[in-house]
């Protein structure tokens, strides 16, 4: 645990210069009102000092700073894409909670689909084989006429059956 805190502290320090850049010199006092779009955008950014929390969810100082920054940029008329690009430029792809669809990230995007396709294909193959087994079983041990008659009689006796 202790070294996790040390690590956390190191991350905070590492992020500080970036944070200093983020702080917009134009914004004197941090905004106290944040509109709902701020949280929609912050939901897509990773809190740099937390363990897997978004900027919208975290109460860490840097997240508050980043939310204020988003509000300030929205007031300047920037679009969501521009704001995300702004943070991506400063922190790298790492700050985006949604991995970009390029480079090494393609593995994580493609593998689940490939696994699902393989699973579906495997199941389909097995199902074909198993239905063939069932047919073969029926051919190997077909019902005699006597048995068929009995089945029919009992079905007629019991009337329309309930659900299985």
């Amino acid at each position, binding site marked *: *645990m202790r*070294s*996790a805190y040390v*690590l956390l502290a190191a991350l905070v320090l590492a992020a500080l210069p970036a944070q200093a850049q983020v702080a917009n010199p134009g914004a004197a006092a941090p905004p*106290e*009102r*944040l*509109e*709902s779009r*701020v*949280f*929609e955008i912050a*939901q*897509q950014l*990773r809190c740099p000092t937390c*363990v*897997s*929390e*978004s900027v*919208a*969810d*975290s*109460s860490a100082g840097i997240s*508050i700073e980043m*939310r204020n920054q988003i509000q300030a940029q929205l007031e300047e008329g920037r679009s969501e894409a521009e704001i995300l690009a702004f943070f991506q430029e400063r922190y*790298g*792809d*790492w*700050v*985006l*909670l*949604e*991995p970009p669809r390029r480079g*090494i*990230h393609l*593995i*994580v*995007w493609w*593998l*689940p689909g490939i*696994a*699902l396709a393989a*699973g*579906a294909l495997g*199941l389909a193959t*097995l*199902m074909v084989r*198993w*239905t063939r*087994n*069932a047919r073969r*079983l029926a051919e190997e041990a077909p019902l005699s006429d006597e048995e068929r008659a009995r089945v029919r009689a*009992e079905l007629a*006796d019991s009337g*329309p059956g*309930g*659900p*299985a």
Partner: protein
Amino acid sequence: MNELSLGPIGSASLLLALAFSVWSLIAAWVGAVRRDAGLLTSSRLAGVATFLAMSVAVAVMEIALLTDDFSVSYVAETSRAANPVWVKMVTLWAALEGSLILWGWLLSGYWALLALRAPNTPLRPWALAVMASVQTFFVLVPAVIAPPFEVMNPVPADGPGPNPLLQNHWMMAVHPFLMYLGFVGLTVPFAYAMAALITRRPGSEWMLQTRRWTLIGWGFLTAAIVTGGWWSYEVLGWGGYWAWDPVENVSFIPWLTATAFIHSVQVQQRRHMLKAWNLALIILTFSMTLLGTFLTRSGVVSSVHAFGDGPVGPAFLAFFVVVTVISLGLMAWRWDQVRDRADLDHPVSREGTFLAGNVLFLAIAFAVLLGTLFPLIVEAFTGDKVTVGAPFFDAATLPLWMGVLGLMGIGPLLPWRRARWQTLRSNLTWMTGVGVAFAVVAAALGMRGTYPLLTVGLIGWNLASFALLLTAAVVPRVRVGTRSVVQVIGDYAFENRRRFGSMIVHLGVVVMAAGILGSSGYRVDEQVRIEMGETHAFRDLEFTALNTFVEQTEYRIGAGATVRVERDGEVLGTLRPKINSFFGQSMDVPTPDVLYLPLYDVYLNVGAGVREGQDFVILRVVRSPLISWIWVGGVVMALGTAYALTPSRRRERETLSAPEGSQTA
């Protein structure tokens, strides 16, 4: 007070538990190999003795916590004299070493219960031997690898107290317990599965003998995950409940594989196929609980650099590898017995939907595991830091969840072996009709987007499925007899515990799906500043800040504001969000306040610290539609599981009615 030092007593009881456990392990294996009844009895008694020794260890730790005995290392590191009694009690599982004692204790409790109550079958000696092996590991860890009863010298006057997040809500007393009961419960079917492999009896025997254990384990795990979500909602201050955090994910993966398991075992029971698949699923479920424990207990998930932080992580990693290799190896060795010549009459059948559902659950589990491990793998190989966050997990699993909801509606309506085309067509027409109607109404009310509309449609599809299921069960019985519909439904529910229980659980899933859709798709967040006495309009609501307050107890200071919530002039409630600061801890804990309403929750959290006499408050305001339906759905799922577990008299009736039936034939 300290004449009798608690530390050595605790250490001694742990070592005693280890000795009993090791003896039980040896006696069980040797006894099972030699079929020596004396040794087997001795092993079972040693199992019970392990439970008693572990109980002593837990009791000693509780006494040490409650009497503030800071000569015990765990108490010195995690407790605090001024804390209230309930916090001291739950401090047992507030940190690593203590939580491992709890785990070992609960496991030994299940084991003792099994040793005393399990019917004497050919599987039992081996199942108990496997349980003894797992138990030995879980006693070894607290007894030797992470000992909590070290004697402190010098004895500190006080400790820091547990992590403030953990002492801020009573859920701390519930959620971890449920989680361990779930994990530990799934050890029992695993042990019987291993026994089935060892004794070359891979039929349905092992799963019939553990059916209740499996359901209990699954039910606790479900309850643990839902209560964990509600706990996050109540304490984390952002109005959400699930962040696809690694720790959440690794508890979710065993739930996914266990859910696949409880469905696919029915295929084996009914149709005598999938032997190998079911064994693989329970092995996977158990090894995923171990992998999850390794990931969360070693600090690996927060960063690769924390690897090797204490010996507990590597111990779990080693145990995970050993368990997985041995159990899969055993399965490979027994392959001739395990493989079955399966026959499937038609893919469109109950078993067909179970198989497809299994593929979906496994695909979800794979996506979650991959997303959780991917950053670790990339960092280990390239040194690059990458993030795989919530948007990935949503995108990767949402289509699969849609498939699960679709199958959940149609599966229970299909008969085993082969569906009759006419019935199927009529059922599908009804379900599709209701589903489309639901989606059209939602679209007319302004809902947009593929997934939201699809989810609403699938909710309608499932509700129609419930109606059809009940109709099919009830209508013939009403026609035959003279009893009223209510009586017939009551009888049906009473006689078909498992089936009716599963319907309740599925209904819970539908309710939860509505809650997830509403809260994740349509929540609104804002941060506002309200002057004292003034009113702020937020959508259809009005907030009035009444006053700020600072309240102090022996162990914490809470500072916040009182806010009245109104709609159309009607007062809905008064909320008191605040920020708690615990003495001895540097971290401030947001303590949001929630107004629970049927259609949406109003969630207030103090956005910036409140000082004495401050004349304004900065609030994070969240309006989250249908979110309480998630908790209601969770409760419904737990109740359905409990209902399915109540003893059924159906079997007696079957055996009674069988001779009559054969006479008429």
